[in-house]
């Protein structure tokens, strides 16, 4: 029996409605996606596929649907970034140091999804410990972008760090996926693979059970085919969690309802500092088009200023490595993870286990972080960066006195080639120039696919909102989505014959 291949190309809301109408079963849907993933190993989107568990969960969902006990995400198959601890399923964080780690507990976000009835297809590829913008630092090798430039066979990166999740959604290997975003790791890969990515407000989703990178910046969020799907998923992911003291005590609204209603009278800010030298004309043109789309639907466009924008990336590259060097101190080869062999004492055990287990980018960041926190340098680097962070946040507070949402490009350009930026760390870091400010200020932001370059590659627009105002950016994102009519799909060159 062969199922229609179109089952795999359902979006989340379509699948939910079809399951509700009983025109498909979760088992059929899950089988189609298991097969799609198996046929698409060339993309290297998954680190671990969990087909048996998926089938088991789908069958349980079908029973619930039959008995009229369906929950909000009942029977909907998702892919999970390999940064979320999943009980009994290997969780690597894209690192050799965790290559054999099987968590004895479940992250709160994934538990919330399973409690809502979702089905797990597997764990997706990512930059090691979420440090990267191209998925190339993964110990499992790079995931590939389903998109290729017109008339080209060159492999492109899917962005990072949630590159596997982005590739899996864009390539129709799952209905939707979960990522994390510390400096742009949901929004940048979403933009360069033509999908929707949402980074919620810091504190909206629990960080419990997410392998920590930079704890004051990390947030989990949905990566989906539509804005509505992102709203649906966030409603289930978000919670107030006693296991994460930074999860904020604010009731979780129904974001799908908040998304409706249009944007008449919405004040949209255009931050002038986001016009950067050397940005491709296509990026600026799309940005102007986005503003015009919103205006045509009744929004008011206002120019605003975020004067400290250019300091955001260097600030991030002090704060994030500092927190990482501290968080990653736990990987010492003693209690879990990789342990070096043939060592003569405990210090050598630590030093060799870490040198063998961590890749080059992670080692670089641990050293930067250790340096900026070390005696004599703390004030010059770390303390100064934390003050800059206050100024960056203040910029946003002032801008939001004059507008309700900000519109910016999502990335400085489309997907780039595998290997193109690996030699120069700073050129890679610049990928996050439009996204990183948001993490430093703890704000929510949404990346929406809005057009293709002349070369046929996706570009996204970003909407930034006030803290805990995800509803407004989803509403504005829906307006962009409706106007852009981004219906493009990559050709499936990667599928096994």
């Amino acid at each position, binding site marked *: 029996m062969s199922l229609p291949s179109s089952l795999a190309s359902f979006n989340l809301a379509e699948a939910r409605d079809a399951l509700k109408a009983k025109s498909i079963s979760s088992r059929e849907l899950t089988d189609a996606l298991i097969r799609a993933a198996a046929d698409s190993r060339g993309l290297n989107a998954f680190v671990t596929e969990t087909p048996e568990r998926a089938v088991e969960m789908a069958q349980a969902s079908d029973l619930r649907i039959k008995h009229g006990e369906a929950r909000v995400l009942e029977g909907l198959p998702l892919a999970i970034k390999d940064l979320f601890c999943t009980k009994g399923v290997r969780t690597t964080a894209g690192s050799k140091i965790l290559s*054999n780690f*099987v968590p*004895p*507990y479940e992250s709160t976000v994934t538990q919330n999804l399973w409690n809502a009835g979702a089905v797990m297809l597997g764990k997706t590829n990512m930059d090691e410990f979420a440090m990267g913008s191209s998925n190339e630092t993964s110990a499992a090798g790079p995931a590939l972008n389903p998109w290729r430039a017109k008339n080209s066979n060159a492999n492109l990166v899917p962005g990072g760090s949630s590159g596997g999740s982005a590739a899996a959604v864009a390539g129709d290997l799952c209905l939707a996926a979960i990522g994390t975003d510390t400096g742009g790791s949901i929004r940048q890969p979403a933009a360069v693979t033509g999908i929707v990515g949402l980074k919620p*407000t*810091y*504190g909206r989703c629990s960080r419990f059970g997410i392998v920590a990178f930079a704890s*004051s910046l990390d947030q989990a969020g949905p990566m989906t085919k539509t804005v509505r799907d992102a709203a649906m998923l966030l409603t289930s992911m978000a919670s107030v969690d*006693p296991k994460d*003291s*930074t999860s*904020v*005590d604010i009731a979780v609204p129904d974001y799908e309802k908040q998304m409706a209603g249009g944007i008449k009278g919405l004040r949209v800010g255009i931050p002038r500092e986001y016009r950067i030298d050397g940005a491709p004309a296509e990026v600026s043109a799309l940005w102007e088009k986005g503003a015009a789309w919103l205006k045509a639907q009744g929004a008011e466009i206002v120019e605003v200023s975020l004067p*400290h924008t250019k*300091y955001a990336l*260097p600030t991030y*590259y*002090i704060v994030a490595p500092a927190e990482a*060097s501290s968080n990653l*101190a736990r990987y*010492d080869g*003693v*209690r*879990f*993870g990789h*342990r070096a062999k043939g*060592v*003569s*004492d*405990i*210090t*050598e*055990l*630590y*030093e*060799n286990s*870490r*040198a063998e287990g961590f890749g080059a980018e992670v*080692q*670089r960041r*641990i*050293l*930067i972080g*250790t*340096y900026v926190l070390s005696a004599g340098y703390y004030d010059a*680097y770390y*303390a*100064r960066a*934390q*003050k*800059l962070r*206050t*100024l960056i946040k203040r910029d946003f507070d002032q801008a939001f006195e004059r507008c309700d949402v900000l519109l910016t490009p999502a990335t400085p350009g489309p997907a780039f080639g595998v290997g193109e930026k690996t030699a*120069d*760390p*700073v050129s890679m870091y610049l990928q996050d120039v439009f996204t990183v400010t948001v993490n*430093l*200020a*703890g704000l929510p932001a949404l990346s929406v696919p809005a057009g293709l370059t002349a070369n046929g590659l996706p570009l996204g627009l970003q909407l930034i909102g006030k*803290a805990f105002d995800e509803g407004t950016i989803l509403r504005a994102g829906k307006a962009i989505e409706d106007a852009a009519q981004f219906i493009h799909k990559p050709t499936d060159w990667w599928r096994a014959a």
Partner: protein
Amino acid sequence: MSVDKDTVRRIAKLARLKVTEERLDPMVAELNGIFQWVEMLNEVKVEGVPAMTSVVAQKLKWRKDEVADGDVADGLMRNAPESEENFFVVPKVVE
């Protein structure tokens, strides 16, 4: 500010990360590339600006200091590279 080989050796030691002699020179170059770039933060006057402590205005929550979980030793030991009767085994630490 820039780092030299000795500094990299020193921070590698602090970070308990073995950096081989042949990796030292490239690492010095890579780190200096990044440190030169972050130098631009010195352009900004930060006197009187408070350091950020929390992005979201909230008081850290208090909770009762009581046991909420436990008896999970088996689960905790399952990932141990080397263990004996719920102890982690490491090379001799004290002579």
